[in-house]
């Protein structure tokens, strides 16, 4: 009995309960709906909720817990001795699952019947051959106990599924009975329904918290695993990044941190003056026509995904800089470099800085400008000596947020900055960043539980904390600044 059918049945029950509940409410008042406390639909809705919600929770909980519990029981039955070298419980469990699936398929293909399966004796017949016909390939000979475990797993899963089915449906019917009985003309069905909806809304807002908790917890957990394998002090202080497939890697964050900060610095050097001056011009000097065309044009830059900038850096900016600057000046020979990625990232950040600055400059009250003009100051003097100093905290906040975005950016540096971890001053050198290494270590071929892979979580945690601190600082500065004018 598949999950889909169960959900379908539940759906029908819910719908049926809705109509029955509504009918009962209305019939209780001789079909004069005005005598009811709430609209008839609320009575129906109440019944529907009582049917669907508890059953849904039971279904979810069961589906989540069932595999875990069954696997625990099955795995305890497999003798230690049968776990071959080089594997462990998890791998064996994976084999069990695959064998069970294969048996399902073999049965479906018609080559085997349930009776045959029960009688199947691994000492006599070849389990591997049987499974091969069903399309399951295994690494070695199938151990008898593993095969038995697979059979056991199948049967237990099937019966557990049946029990779940019964439980869920009975909970649904129980809910129906409870709700149906409570229907009366004075019953405040609407309040019940609205209370449930309110809890739904609260649950939705919890998702934000859960996400943050999830991010921190997942990274902390794996980073902790990593630091069990690799000394934490060395991670934060070693200037060498050299992961080796076979072990013995040196995993120091310093070269990556340097690359990140260097690229972000170049990006900000490009973006901040350009964005700030563009914002100043567009809000203080530009006429309505120029503002109407230039502002959307700059906003388009903001909507372009970072992969586009990455490709632009890789195929256009990189070769251009290499051919016209790096080679002639003898500074480098690579089209991937800090300055390539920094330039592309800077262009990406221009609209970010520009629109934030624009908001901040417009927030400076007009009467300050009037006071300055009335004293005979030119517009540029007013901007330089009155408006910008007044807007300075906000602009600092905007720069910090821009830095935070630059530090967290991935695709531009993956495609534009290269993969070699270096501590170099030459901007035409290829230098990699934290984000690039997170991607490369997590998508590489190393085993998951090795330090080379888990280091990505430590890197991610560092990145997260860094950007979080920058964001908090930026928001604090901007908030303090807003208080000045309110």
């Amino acid at each position: 009995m598949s999950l889909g059918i169960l959900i379908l049945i539940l759906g029908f029950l819910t719908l049926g309960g809705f109509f029955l509940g509504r009918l009962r409410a209305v019939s209780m008042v001789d079909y004069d709906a005005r005598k009811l406390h709430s609209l008839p639909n609320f009575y129906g809705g109440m019944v529907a909720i009582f049917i669907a919600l508890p059953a849904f929770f039971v279904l979810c909980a069961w589906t989540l817990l069932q595999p875990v519990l069954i696997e625990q029981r099955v795995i305890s039955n497999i003798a230690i001795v049968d776990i071959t070298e080089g594997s462990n419980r998890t791998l064996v469990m994976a084999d069990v699952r695959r064998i069970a699936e294969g048996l399902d398929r073999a049965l479906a293909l018609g080559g085997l019947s349930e009776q045959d399966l029960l009688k199947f004796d691994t000492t006599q017949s070849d389990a591997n051959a049987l499974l091969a016909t069903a399309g399951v390939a295994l690494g070695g000979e199938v151990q008898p106990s593993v095969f038995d475990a697979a059979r056991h797993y199948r049967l237990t899963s099937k019966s557990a599924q049946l029990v779940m089915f019964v439980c869920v449906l009975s909970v649904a019917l129980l809910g129906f009975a409870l709700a149906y009985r409570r229907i009366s003309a004075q019953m405040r069905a609407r309040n019940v329904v609205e209370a449930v909806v309110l809890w739904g809304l609260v649950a939705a807002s919890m998702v934000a918290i859960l996400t943050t908790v999830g991010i921190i917890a997942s990274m902390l957990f794996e980073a902790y695993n990593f630091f069990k394998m690799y000394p934490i002090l060395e991670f934060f202080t070693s200037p060498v990044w050299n992961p080796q497939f076979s072990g013995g890697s040196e995993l120091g964050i310093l070269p990556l941190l340097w690359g990140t900060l260097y690229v972000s610095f170049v990006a900000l050097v490009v973006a901040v003056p350009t964005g700030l001056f563009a914002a100043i011009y567009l809000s203080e000097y530009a006429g309505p026509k120029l503002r109407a065309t230039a502002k959307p044009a700059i906003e388009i830059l903001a909507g372009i995904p970072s992969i586009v900038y990455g490709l632009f850096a890789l195929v256009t900016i990189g070769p251009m800089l290499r051919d016209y600057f790096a080679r002639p000046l003898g500074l480098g020979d690579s089209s991937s470099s800090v300055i390539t990625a920094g330039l592309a990232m800077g262009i990406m950040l221009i609209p970010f800085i520009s629109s934030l600055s624009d908001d901040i400059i417009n927030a400076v009250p007009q009467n300050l400008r009037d006071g300055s003009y009335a004293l005979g100051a030119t517009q540029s003097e007013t901007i330089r000596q009155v408006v910008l100093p007044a807007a300075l905290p906000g602009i600092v906040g905007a720069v910090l947020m821009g830095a935070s975005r630059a530090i967290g950016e991935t695709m531009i540096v993956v495609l534009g900055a290269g993969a070699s971890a270096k501590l170099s001053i030459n901007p035409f050198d290829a230098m990699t960043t934290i984000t690039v290494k997170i991607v490369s270590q997590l998508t590489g071929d190393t085993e998951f539980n090795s330090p080379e892979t888990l280091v990505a979580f430590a890197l991610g945690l560092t990145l997260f904390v860094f950007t979080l601190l920058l964001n908090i600082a930026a928001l604090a500065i901007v908030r303090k600044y807003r208080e000045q004018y309110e």
Partner: protein
Amino acid sequence: MNNMIFLERNVQVEKNKIAAQGVQVFYGENHALKDVNVDILDKTVTAFIGPSGCGKSTFLRCLNRMNDTIAGCRIVGDIRLDGEDIYEAAVDPVQLRAKVGMVFQKPNPFPKSIYDNVAYGPKIHGLSRSKAELDEIVETSLRRAALWNEVKDRLHAGAIGLSGGQQQRLCIARAIATGPEVLLMDEPCSALDPIATAQVEQLIDELRSRYSVVIVTHSMQQAARVSQRTAFFHMGNLVEYGETGHIFTNPSDPRTESYITGRIG
């Protein structure tokens, strides 16, 4: 009208400082000011009175070309400062505004120190050649604005921390620091409490010995207290202009009388 105080100081110089002829102002299609003719005298306090929206602030802002900053504002007519047409092409508004200062309705000190607020004007116009000179200008301006004694110990404190009345006097000091000859004041006391108002009114009276002051005010009593000449605006027209005493006791135009007696406005 018995509780109005008439100031009977001698008006020392009767020279024409600003002469306006046939001034009209359009905000886009809106004909905000119609045919204003008025002469502002030197070393005199001239008050512009009238109900809300009658154009008095608009006309005030024409006198230092602050209306230039408003898009869609068009000015027709002749305004002469010391005989020179201020709307001529050769005139740089920057220099005009060094000569004609303005104080606004809501005090607008810059978020800088008290010293820097007052020093801002002289600095950009290059009026001082040394720090000592600048200090002197700042002190003189603050003294003339009757603020020196209250702030002399905290010149480098933030100007935002002053009270409303102090802030407005600071703005006056700031306007004076550029050495103007005319001071325009757009309802300078309307955002202040009565005590601060009294202080500023006293200050205006002292200022008149050095500057030509034009003050826009909502309060007839204030106009009567501080000014020697009064101009009554109504619906974009300058209805009557003359000696303050005369306007308030024996107005020539029936509209003026209606406003004075409170029937309109």
